């Protein structure tokens, strides 16, 4: 091998710390691309291939009982591809030996071998359930907590306890995860329905629609037509209609939106990694200027030198790729596993898509080459004389000309070593600028990410603040309010109780279609059990009749609704117009509206009866409120009042926080990557500064600098850089945090309460000080070991 290429290889091995720093700078960018872009691509690919393959339902009708004649009639419609009847029951279950009943959504399927809509995916060794057997949806495995062979107890509609044997797991891509619904999902055959006290009929009509229907409103129109012209014509009453976005998984848009943030952070990390490479390569060229001068003096042409240094950068790139691709693939798989378990995507193919892999390799090779272009080309343009005789004054290592230099130079009263550190910091302004850009962006995005996390917390707390009660109880049947409140208040630990009227409603749109379900709550207008955040109009008044206050969940679902307008709601059998008088901020629970309880009583003719009790307790912690909830439930049951659900606000908040936890985990990954980039950046800069200051170290040594003084000079320099970046980072963090929060709320279609995180600012301050000291410690240690003779002779 010609000597110049040997030099390229030997320079890599001779300067191991520098090689490590450049390789890590490159690797962190590829790693970020692998995790963020690769992970997103694998999850999306899985969704995009498995969703159409599952023959997803386009419309779900919940109805009164129907038979297969109706299914055939629906299938005859030109825009219907397939239809299937199922039986849907919301029941309670528990494992043997457990006291507490939990929710399970049990779907009965008549013919598992010929599922036409919403196909299930099972292990070939898993049989379909026979009488008395149950299959558990994969995402409910932890929630239900049973293994194949175990038995679960299901409380039937007739209040009997029925044992079902778990025979395995099945994947239903379109099933809600327990994280979102607080309910397990399981499947039985029709022959188990009798035992469960459910009649063996269908009450759930799943309809796969033609691909010709491209928009949600196309599907809504078809739903209305099927309801009016086919289903109700067969004498089957539709309880609710759920049109789905055509061709879209229910989490698809949210996932795409949220994951775009990941892509943004991945690209940003890549950019920062590019800055690190510019910094390290430019310092490498600076360190080698004298050698470049010598090589030019013995006949090296600029083109040859450019080739040598690009080859060196290419080798760094290859090292970075070799390090980052396997590590990135491992982290990508972990990320995909986590994401798929939360989103209930079944991943069959973990391989990184070729374009992403090509991007990772391309980025690893080309970003460093592009980043190195300016320092390498400008380094090679320097004349032999400059390279040989002025190399200490090249690359901006001049002090004393700029405004900052003069200000620092005029600072009086500073101890000399501190003054030296401060001035050294500004000696190489180009490098300082790049280091500061990298660290500032890392700091800013870290703080912004922390603020998104704080905003999520603030949003959860806001939802809790709207509910100044501790738990609620739902009964199977409506009972007189006075009785319910008296019996609830009789339970020890209960300090207040109020009965509400809560009903499922649908909006009857002017075009004849109907909305998805709206939760209509009748409550006393002056109730102190609800603390709404009014955004527009007014709250309910005691003398209100058909006044309705909608929440932001409703305006999101039905954007044409305005305060001052009217809305036609179908509640049970009753269709009625309501005047919209106000708009309140909603929570995560979908669309809901508030009306006067007394007026709703009149409309529904419920005569002072209700089945939802909101309860305030003397304790507010998770365990305390849960204990009171159990006591309330037991007490009401003893009094012959059948309880279908008790839920504590604390548990609801935990569930909401849990469903947002995937976002928090994503955010933590982003923050960790950025912290890594910042740390590597500062370590690199400090190492390079020390290497380039070897001669100064010798001079300081010669005039009596102790180890302590050298440590002080370099550590102060590192900390000064860290603190400047922290300050600048905090400045850009506010707009970044607002942007990130806005992007996130657009992605999840839910308004977040923006809360800037002082904790994030403080955390980065601590981190940057620790990392600055750490990053300067090793270089300072090396500096302290350099002898005067070595230092002065340093080339």
């Amino acid at each position, binding site marked *: 091998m010609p000597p*110049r290429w*040997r*030099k390229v290889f030997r320079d890599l091995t001779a300067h191991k710390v520098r090689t490590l720093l450049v390789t890590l700078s490159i690797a962190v960018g590829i790693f970020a691309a692998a995790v963020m872009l690769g992970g997103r691509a694998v999850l999306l690919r899985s969704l995009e291939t498995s969703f159409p393959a599952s023959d997803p339902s386009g419309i779900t009708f919940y109805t009164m009982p129907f038979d297969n004649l109706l299914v055939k009639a629906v299938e005859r419609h030109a825009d219907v591809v397939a239809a299937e009847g199922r039986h849907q029951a919301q029941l309670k279950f528990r494992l043997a030996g457990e006291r507490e009943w939990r929710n399970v959504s049990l779907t009965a399927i008549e013919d598992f071998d010929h599922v036409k809509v919403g196909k299930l995916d099972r292990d070939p060794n898993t049989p379909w359930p026979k009488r008395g057997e149950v299959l558990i949806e994969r995402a409910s495995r932890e929630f239900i907590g049973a293994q194949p062979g175990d038995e679960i107890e299901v409380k039937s509609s007739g209040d009997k306890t029925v044992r079902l044997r778990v025979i395995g797991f099945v994947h239903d891509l379109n099933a809600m995860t327990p994280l979102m619904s607080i309910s397990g999902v399981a499947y039985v055959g029709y022959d188990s329905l009798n035992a469960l006290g459910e009649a063996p009929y269908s009450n759930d009509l799943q309809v796969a629609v033609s691909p010709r229907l491209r928009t949600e409103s196309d599907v809504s129109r078809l739903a209305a037509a099927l309801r009016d012209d086919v289903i109700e014509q067969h004498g089957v009453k539709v309880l609710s209609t759920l049109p789905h976005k055509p061709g879209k998984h229910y989490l698809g848009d949210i996932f795409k939106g949220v994951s775009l943030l990941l892509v943004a952070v991945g690209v940003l990390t890549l950019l920062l990694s590019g800055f690190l490479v510019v910094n390290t390569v430019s310092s490498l060229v600076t360190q080698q200027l004298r050698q470049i001068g010598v*090589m030019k003096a013995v006949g090296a042409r600029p083109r040859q030198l450019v080739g040598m240094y690009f080859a060196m950068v290419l080798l760094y790139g290859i090292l970075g790729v070799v390090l980052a691709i396997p590590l990135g693939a491992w982290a990508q798989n972990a990320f995909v596993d986590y994401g798929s378990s939360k989103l209930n995507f079944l991943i069959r193919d973990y391989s990184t898509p070729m374009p992403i892999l090509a991007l990772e390799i391309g980025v690893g090779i080309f970003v460093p080459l592009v980043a190195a272009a300016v320092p390498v080309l400008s380094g090679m343009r320097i004349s*032999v004389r400059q390279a040989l005789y002025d190399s200490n004054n090249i690359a901006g290592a001049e002090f004393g000309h700029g405004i900052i230099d003069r200000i620092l130079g005029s600072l009086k009263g500073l101890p000399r070593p501190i003054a030296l550190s401060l001035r050294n910091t500004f000696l190489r302004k180009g490098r300082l600028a790049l280091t500061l850009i990298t660290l500032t962006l890392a700091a800013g995005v870290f703080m912004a990410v922390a603020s998104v996390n704080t905003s999520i917390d603030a949003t959860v707390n806001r939802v809790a603040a709207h509910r100044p009660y501790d738990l609620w109880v739902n009964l199977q049947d409506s009972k007189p309010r006075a009785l319910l409140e008296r019996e609830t208040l009789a339970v020890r630990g209960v300090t207040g109780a109020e009965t509400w009227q809560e009903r499922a409603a649908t909006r009857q749109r002017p075009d004849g279609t109907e909305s998805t379900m709206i939760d209509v709550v009748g409550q006393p207008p002056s109730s102190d059990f609800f603390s709404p955040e009014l955004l527009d109009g007014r709250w309910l008044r005691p003398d209100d009749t058909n006044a309705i206050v909608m929440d932001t969940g409703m305006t999101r679902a039905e954007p044409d609704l305005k305060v001052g307008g009217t809305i036609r709601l179908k509640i049970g059998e009753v269709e009625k117009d309501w005047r919209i008088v106000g708009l309140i901020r909603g929570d995560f629970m979908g669309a809901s509206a508030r009306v006067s309880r007394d007026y709703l009583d009149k409309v529904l003719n419920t005569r002072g009866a209700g089945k939802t009790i909101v309860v305030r307790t003397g304790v507010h912690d998770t365990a305390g409120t849960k204990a009171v909830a159990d006591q309330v439930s037991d007490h009401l049951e003893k009094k012959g009042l059948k309880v279908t659900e008790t839920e504590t606000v604390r548990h609801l908040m935990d569930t909401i926080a849990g469903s947002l936890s995937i976002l928090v985990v994503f955010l933590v990954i982003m923050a960790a990557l950025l912290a890594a980039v910042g740390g590597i950046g500062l370590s690199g800069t400090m190492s390079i500064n020390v290497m380039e200051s070897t001669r100064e170290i010798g001079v300081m040594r010669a005039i009596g600098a102790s180890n302590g003084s050298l440590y002080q000079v370099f550590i102060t320099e590192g900390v000064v850089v860290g603190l400047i970046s922290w300050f600048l980072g905090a400045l850009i963090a506010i707009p970044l945090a607002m942007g990130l929060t806005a992007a996130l709320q657009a992605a999840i279609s839910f308004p977040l309460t923006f809360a800037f995180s002082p904790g994030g600012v403080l955390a980065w301050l601590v981190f940057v000080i620790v990392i600055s000291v750490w990053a300067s410690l090793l270089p300072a240690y090396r500096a302290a070991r350099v002898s005067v003779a070595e230092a002065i002779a340093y080339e």
Partner: protein
Amino acid sequence: MRPPKDERGNGSSRASASNGSLIHLERVEKVYETGALRFRALKGIDLEMGAGEFVGLIGKSGSGKTTLVNMVTGIDRPTAGEVLVGDTAVHTLSENQMAIWRGRALGVVFQFFQLLPTLTVAENVMLPMDFCNVYAPRERYGKALEILASVDMADQAGKLPAALSGGQQQRVAIARALANDPPIIVADEPTGNLDSKTAEQVFELFEDLVAAGKTILMVTHDSDLIKRVHRALLVADGEIVDEIRNRRPSIER
């Protein structure tokens, strides 16, 4: 010492210039400007050197000696005036042309040796051959050993520069300057960083090279050595203020 063979037939005896001299400087000026400061390092230097001549440049620090040799090597360019080396107008060359020309026409020896620390002794010598594509790649190692033998360093060929003494490093630097068998060697204080005994040995090497037909321009501080060059030029304040001829006139004027 045995001078290396001239493989291409254009080695040590090659000499031509516009007026019969090998090196010709005419009214060479060099001005450095740093901010408001303007410094005239060379003030209209005229210099002629013939082939095979050994010329020493002496003068105090800052007198302009190094700037003057840098004009000849093309390491620096004149602000005004002409620099002709052989047939080449050095001051008109681009960086690329300069590199190609310098690699073949000149060998440069520095005070601080300037060997590349990550290359072995032999590789340092092979480097100019590699850059200038002189000799077939397979022949280069043999050539490097031959040249190293001529400076008594062949037995150190596989070592890294850090393992050598200052004198040994300077011998290797001279070997590197001879790598492409240039007719001219320019040395900037090659003995300045060596003890007197080693300096003597290194200087003898230069004398051997002159005897073998090389043309040498050397900057030195050592007044004893001045007596052993053909001609010594005293540089002061950017001008040649005196000339001492020792043995033979280099150019027939």
